[in-house]
């Protein structure tokens, strides 16, 4: 009885501490233990997922090259009014910084890196920097201004120096501007890229439309399949399930390549069409290396992601519901629309969000079968990662894509509610 009462009427545990406190301590310890169990997973996600994404996103605003190489010159350029050419002091400081960097093999690469950064803003800068850094070695006496202009007349143009000043900021949102088909003039105003260079906005729009299209096509194809799977006797439906799962387990690359075999101009489908006589031998249909190919292959590859959640939801709907609706006088259409369909919304939602998010970042399939007009934003990200090595721009494009997906997720949560999602 000592556990229950003392004079103050407070409930107490065996050791005399108030029960509330003891309970809180016990739950805290339980919580801590539970948390401890999840720490390996947490650490894993942090190290392999959050951290790399964070580092990559940091690259999109990180532009240290020019400021690291020429800090003194940049300080002088900050004072410059930008009207005429910078003064001799800027040229002299630029020359001495270049000479110092070029004297050692390890620091010499800093000039090239700065040149690469500048080349993103103005083509031709890479060789201009390399050429200048080689030739300026031999110039020891002022006037440096004349010496620079003699090396290349671009050093006698104010815009060249404005570009350096612009690229000199330690952090910059330039990559995001470029990712939205914008750029800055030498004076720092934000302007649209020339029309012949605009590409990213078009690709973002195309990616979203393709993803929506693929999602809709997947719903249309997966709905009857899932219904069949959920309603057939288990022996038959298990067999059919294998047909859904087998491709799901097959390598993405193999499935994409099979579509090439099927769809190409001299492929199986065209051969059959010609053989039947629907199309002439000289007017075979172009079904691959364009948007059609991308669309067909992506729909096929993403289909299981729609079938599985739909199936698991449909499996739980008692068949009596439809029978009850029919017996109460609803015709099949009404019964389906008012009784069956609303119960499958959770599955459709889960499948759609899976398919849509996978589609929006799809890369290998469009790269292989997309040709010129079936390319998506991920292909251009890959291009900047692997070919042009403009990782800042790639990171900015990826960042925008990530933000877009998160926004859609948020929207989905507001409209449908994430707790209504059933994944299996």
């Amino acid at each position, binding site marked *: 009885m000592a556990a229950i009462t003392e004079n103050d009427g407070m409930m107490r545990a065996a050791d005399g501490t108030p029960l509330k406190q003891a309970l809180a301590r016990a739950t805290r310890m339980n919580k801590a233990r539970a948390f401890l169990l999840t720490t390996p997973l947490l650490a894993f996600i942090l190290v392999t997922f959050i951290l790399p994404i964070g580092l990559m996103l940091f690259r999109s605003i990180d532009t240290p090259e020019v400021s690291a190489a020429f800090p003194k010159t940049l300080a002088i350029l900050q004072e410059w009014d930008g009207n005429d050419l910078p003064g001799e002091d800027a040229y002299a400081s630029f020359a001495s910084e270049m000479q110092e960097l070029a004297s050692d093999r390890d620091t010499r690469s800093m000039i090239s890196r700065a040149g690469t950064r500048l080349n993103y803003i103005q083509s031709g800068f890479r060789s201009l920097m390399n050429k200048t850094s080689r030739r300026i070695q031999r110039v020891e006496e002022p006037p440096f201004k004349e010496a620079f202009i003699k090396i290349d007349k671009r050093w006698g143009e104010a815009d060249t120096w404005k570009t350096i000043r612009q690229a000199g900021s330690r952090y910059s949102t330039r990559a995001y501007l470029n990712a939205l088909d914008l750029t800055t003039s030498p004076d720092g105003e934000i302007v649209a890229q020339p029309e012949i260079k605009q590409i990213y906005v078009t690709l973002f729009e195309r990616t979203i439309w393709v993803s929506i299209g693929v999602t809709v096509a997947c719903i249309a194809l997966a709905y009857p399949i899932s219904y069949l799977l959920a309603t057939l006797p288990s022996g038959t439906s298990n067999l059919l399930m294998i047909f859904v799962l087998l491709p799901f387990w097959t390598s993405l690359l193999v499935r994409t390549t099979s579509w090439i075999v099927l769809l190409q101009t001299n492929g199986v489908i065209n051969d059959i069409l010609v053989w039947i006589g629907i199309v002439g031998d000289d007017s075979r249909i172009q079904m691959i290396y364009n948007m059609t190919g991308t669309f067909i292959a992506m729909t096929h590859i993403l289909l299981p992601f729609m079938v599985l959640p739909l199936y698991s939801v449909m499996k739980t709907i008692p068949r009596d519901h439809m029978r009850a609706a029919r017996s109460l006088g609803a015709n099949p259409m009404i019964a389906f629309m008012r009784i069956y369909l609303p119960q499958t919304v959770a599955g459709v939602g889960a499948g759609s969000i899976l398919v849509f998010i996978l589609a929006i970042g799809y890369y290998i399939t469009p790269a292989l079968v997309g040709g*010129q007009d079936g390319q998506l934003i991920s292909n251009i990200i890959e291009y900047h990662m692997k070919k042009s090595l403009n990782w800042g721009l790639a990171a900015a494009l990826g960042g925008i894509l990530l933000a877009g997906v998160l926004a859609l997720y948020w929207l989905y949560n507001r409209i449908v509610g994430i707790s209504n999602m059933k994944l299996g």
Partner: protein
Amino acid sequence: MSAMKPSRLLIAGLAAIGLTTAAQAADTITVVSWGGAYTNSQVKAYHEPWIAKTGNKINSEDYNGGLAEVRAQVEAGNVTWDLVDVELADAVRGCDEGILEPMPLDELPAGSDGTPAKDDFIAGTLHECAVGEIVWSTVYSYDTTKVATKPTTIADFFDLKKIPGKRGLRKTAKVNLEWALMADGVPADKVYEVLATPAGIDRAFAKLDTIKNDVVWWEAGAQPPQLLADGEVVMTSAYNGRLFNAIVNEKKPFDIVWDGQVWDIDLWVMPKGSKNKAAAMDFVKFATDTDRLADQANYISYGPVRKSSFAKVAPAMQPHMPTAPVNFKNPLQNDFGFWADYGDELNERFNAWLAS
């Protein structure tokens, strides 16, 4: 029985440790190249003799060109590639950016005729950070069974009236813009001069526009011979060695048009911080001597970069070399300096042009 198990395990464990130490006594280097018929030629001509001679091992990996992996490895401080076969533009850029090791050019063996290495290598094939191996070329090829009139010049590639049908081109600005200008009448030695002007760029894209709807774009070197074999295109640009493999080894009815060939070189480079520097350098010296380079040309039709190797290439291979006089009539050397400067801008415009 159960008492036996730990001791057996122990023995097995000890044996395993013994095996690993034995393996570590010999070096294993990772050599990265472009895969397919090209890597095979390197394995036969360079890897196998070197392994036989030194007892070291080679881990051969494939990649698709570019410096992305090298840069990622160097920046992360975890360099797993020891040698990479790269194009000249990438060798120069990587060296400038400081992600490649300098090469010991003085230690390269002299030619078999005694010429010092720096005179034996063709001009421009030795670089501060890179040692040249082969001369290769981008040419175009057609299926002799599919065309009525045989194309002979680079202008024919752009002539839809003369030869109708789809064409294959690599999905990049490089080579395509040069070809467009050459087909439009710009002589080879003026191509880069014209391409450096805004009017020249417009002219090249305008010429490409004329065939845009009939182009199938490829990315990996193994694709174009396949496109041609599948009948997906009537002609396609391709690397000459891949075509040689299709024509000579696979007996495909293709023919090569050498007019307007754009030639380039491939070189060995070493990512900065390679863990097997000594063994890898030894491999470079071994693989770029006169006999190895000549032998490599027996397996694929890429020309050796050493003058002393020319004469040692098998006579049967000579007519397939990009540098054979009969093929080398209107060649253009890929200008890496031009592409280092204008590559970003032109590819950006090329991508936009493709997507529009």
